[in-house]
């Protein structure tokens, strides 16, 4: 029982990271109707920036918040420079650009910081807490993701800019008609998605180690979370991300599955949800009148 509980807690801590990635994906999906394949690489690049800042001797939390700021600006710039001109382009153009962005960030990080695996510090230490139930880094990771999610909730629920961003996602045409600068709201969404990804990257890097491919499987789990929860529901994406984390960890207990098939479980879950409920567990079915 103790083992199951500790596996659930470990699942919650990585699930929080998946939830953040899922949320970043959903935010961009809501704004531009496309899945950002490069979300993970953006997060990885942000984590390398944090590593560089730490390497230059900055204190952890200063580097942490500076990285969030830099990532935010970077996300806004990517939207303004790359995606704004693509606004009315067909789906395939977007996919090609996402792949390009993926490749550029991945090999760019390898070029600048090379492909050797680096260790990344945790500010929470790695001492076991409550017996051996959970490590202090895992506990810190859960706290940070919950703080991020609460801040985002408050932002969207209680601020005017948050309201304007929700309106833009819900009905861009009406948003324009009341004078909301829709283009900038989308750029802001990109910036926030990049910043959330940066937090996720910096939190998971001590666990998976820092290298240019570190986010690929994390992003897959993030996608799984987003799809399970529903791509139209930020709340669903968060729940989906946490669930995937827990399921991933508990799948080790299923006979014959074991840890080697963890990723398969996530992918099987995507297929299963899409078959039974294509809009995701919390997603909204979009009905179009013709």
């Amino acid at each position, binding site marked *: 029982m103790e083992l199951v509980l500790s596996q659930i807690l470990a699942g919650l801590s990585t699930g929080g990271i998946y939830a953040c990635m899922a949320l970043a994906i959903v935010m961009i999906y809501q704004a531009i109707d496309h899945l950002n394949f490069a979300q993970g690489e953006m997060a990885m690049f942000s984590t390398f920036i944090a590593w560089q800042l730490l390497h230059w001797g900055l204190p952890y939390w200063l580097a942490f918040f500076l990285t969030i700021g830099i990532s935010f600006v970077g996300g806004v710039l990517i939207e303004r420079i790359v995606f704004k001109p693509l606004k009315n382009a067909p789906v395939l153009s977007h996919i090609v650009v996402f792949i390009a962005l993926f490749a550029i960030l991945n090999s760019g990080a390898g070029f600048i910081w090379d492909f050797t695996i680096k260790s990344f510090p945790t500010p929470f230490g790695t001492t076991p807490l409550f017996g051996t139930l959970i490590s202090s880094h895992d506990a810190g990771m859960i706290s940070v993701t919950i703080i991020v999610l609460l801040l985002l909730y408050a932002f969207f629920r209680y601020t*005017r800019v948050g*309201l*304007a961003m*929700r*309106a833009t996602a*819900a*009905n861009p*045409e*009406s*948003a*324009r*008609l*009341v*004078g*909301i*600068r*829709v283009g900038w709201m989308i750029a802001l969404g990109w910036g926030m998605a990049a910043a959330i990804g940066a937090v996720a990257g910096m939190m998971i890097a001590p666990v998976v180690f820092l290298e240019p491919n570190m986010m690929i499987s994390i992003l897959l789990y993030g996608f799984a979370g987003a799809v399970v929860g529903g791509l139209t529901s930020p709340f669903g994406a968060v729940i989906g991300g946490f669930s995937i984390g827990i399921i991933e960890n508990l799948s080790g207990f299923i006979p014959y599955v074991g840890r080697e098939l963890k990723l398969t479980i996530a992918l099987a879950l995507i297929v299963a949800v899409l078959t039974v409920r294509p809009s995701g567990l919390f997603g909204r079915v979009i009905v179009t009148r013709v």
Partner: protein
Amino acid sequence: MSEILLSARHLCAFYGATRVLHGIDFDIVEGSVTAFLGANGAGKTSTLRALSGMIETTGEIRFGGQAVAGKTTEELARLGIAHVPEGRGTFSRMTIEENLQLGAMSRKDRAGIAADIERVDGYFPRLRERAHQQAGTMSGGEQQMLAIGRALMMRPKLMLLDEPSFGLAPLMVDEVYAILRKLKEDEGVSMLLVEQNAAAALALADQAYLIETGEIVMSGLAQEIGRDENIRRAYLGY
């Protein structure tokens, strides 16, 4: 009083390569209600969309003395053009209150916004009762009222109304038009009204234009157009 708020000269509008307005001229007098009447597909909605920068246009548009052709929808909204679109443009999963707040999104005066919500609730008591209800759950007429309320929150210089009677029960049409009349009389809001329900529109409007396949075929005082039996038979169908 008879200052011209908006004037269009040789206005053409396009959906892709298809031209839907063929060089129309019209003026809107400040504080007055102007009606555009015509059949389905005549170009009424396109005229409004052209004025809001939602479709490609050529020609000249002057609004409050400023050339505004080619400006974006957002900029035009911020200049004071409040467009209540076809289908009402409700943010249906948000509350009534949030919908009204969104109308004031380009304003910064918090006290003024709060006062304007009170003012709008005064015109539409139904909205106050349901401030925290999801907008999409209201009836068509109530959503139309909400859309007008949202436009009022912008403190507009000109309201563009796209078929406010569309899909409403006759009693509800009367209610909506009674409110529009009140807005005209109490606040002097300038309006450009597009309607298939010619009788309702002509009763409210000062000026009227008849539009047919993208061209203006007749214009004049709303009263006179409403009185002329030949016009009524030929163009308005009542």
